């Protein structure tokens, strides 16, 4: 299972990647914004995406829109500080499958990933 982690914070990418490693997902690629995420995605093999919302260049919502334009089935988990109800609804409407608000516990990330992967 290859997972793409998109976040402009290197600290946050590291935390997510560490958490993924602890729950058994070690095949991870990372990108610092949506545009770089699309490039990684184009290289192929990614089976799940974990993305932030607030990023430079291309934000998470634009990124999700671009991904959904070509792939309607890849599971996307948004991990962001945006906690307002309208933000969560916007993300879901854009094509996000589930939503985690920062700061999160590893248990929450694990729960969401497992629910997305069925």
């Amino acid at each position, binding site marked *: 299972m290859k997972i793409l982690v998109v976040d402009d914070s290197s600290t946050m990418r590291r*935390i997510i990647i560490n*958490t993924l490693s602890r729950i058994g997902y070690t095949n991870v690629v990372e990108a610092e914004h949506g545009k770089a995420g699309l490039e990684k995605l184009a290289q192929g093999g990614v089976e799940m995406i974990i993305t932030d919302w607030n990023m430079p260049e291309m934000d998470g919502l634009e990124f999700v829109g671009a991904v959904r334009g070509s792939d309607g089935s890849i599971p996307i988990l948004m991990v962001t500080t945006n*906690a307002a109800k309208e933000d969560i609804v916007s993300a879901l409407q854009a094509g996000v499958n589930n939503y985690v608000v920062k700061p999160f516990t590893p248990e929450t990330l694990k729960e969401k990933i497992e629910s997305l992967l069925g």
Partner: protein
Amino acid sequence: MDQSEIDAIMGGGSGKGSGSKKHKGAQPAPKPPETTAPAPVPAPTPVATPPPASAKKDSEVSSSIPSVRVIGELGAVTAVTERETNKVMDKLDQISQLLDQQRILVTEMMGNESIQNPTIQSSVHQIMTACTEIQNKVYEAMDLMQFQDISRQKLERIMHHLRQIHDYILDLLGTGFQSQPAAKISLSNSIASTGTSPDENKTHADSVVDEFLRANKKG
């Protein structure tokens, strides 16, 4: 913003720490004539005018303005804290790796027939339990580093508002200067109220997601 900072913007004078830089276009008040004039004409108020294009680049002048400096300093703070947080993460990773090595050693040791003494076995078991506890604490410490990303976003929001105020004032004064355009940033509207307790918004987010998914299913 204090008076010295406003003065610095108005006249390009020396605001806090800005040295003695002055806009070249700002002229001192002319001296009243020494002849016996009927009535002294009040000195005209100096007007801040932009320096000639050849005198200084906009960016050079702009960077001498306190608000621009503050924005730059806040940017540096976010960069430094991210770098230093990664150093802490490096150290935690090293502790984690050392713990793994110790656990491997202890596991190997436990298989050795020469230490089958129950007392030693019990001690070794306690060491293993302690290793696991330390490892969990290391993971918890790593997870707590999320505060850095949240603080960074809060600072970026402050920088964004400072930049807006800065540009507004300069526009109002007709200086023609603009702050250095920031790289495209995306700001969280709710970052100001975001805390640092893990999962504090989980129940709320989960209920919104569930409600959305249920509505979509019905639709």
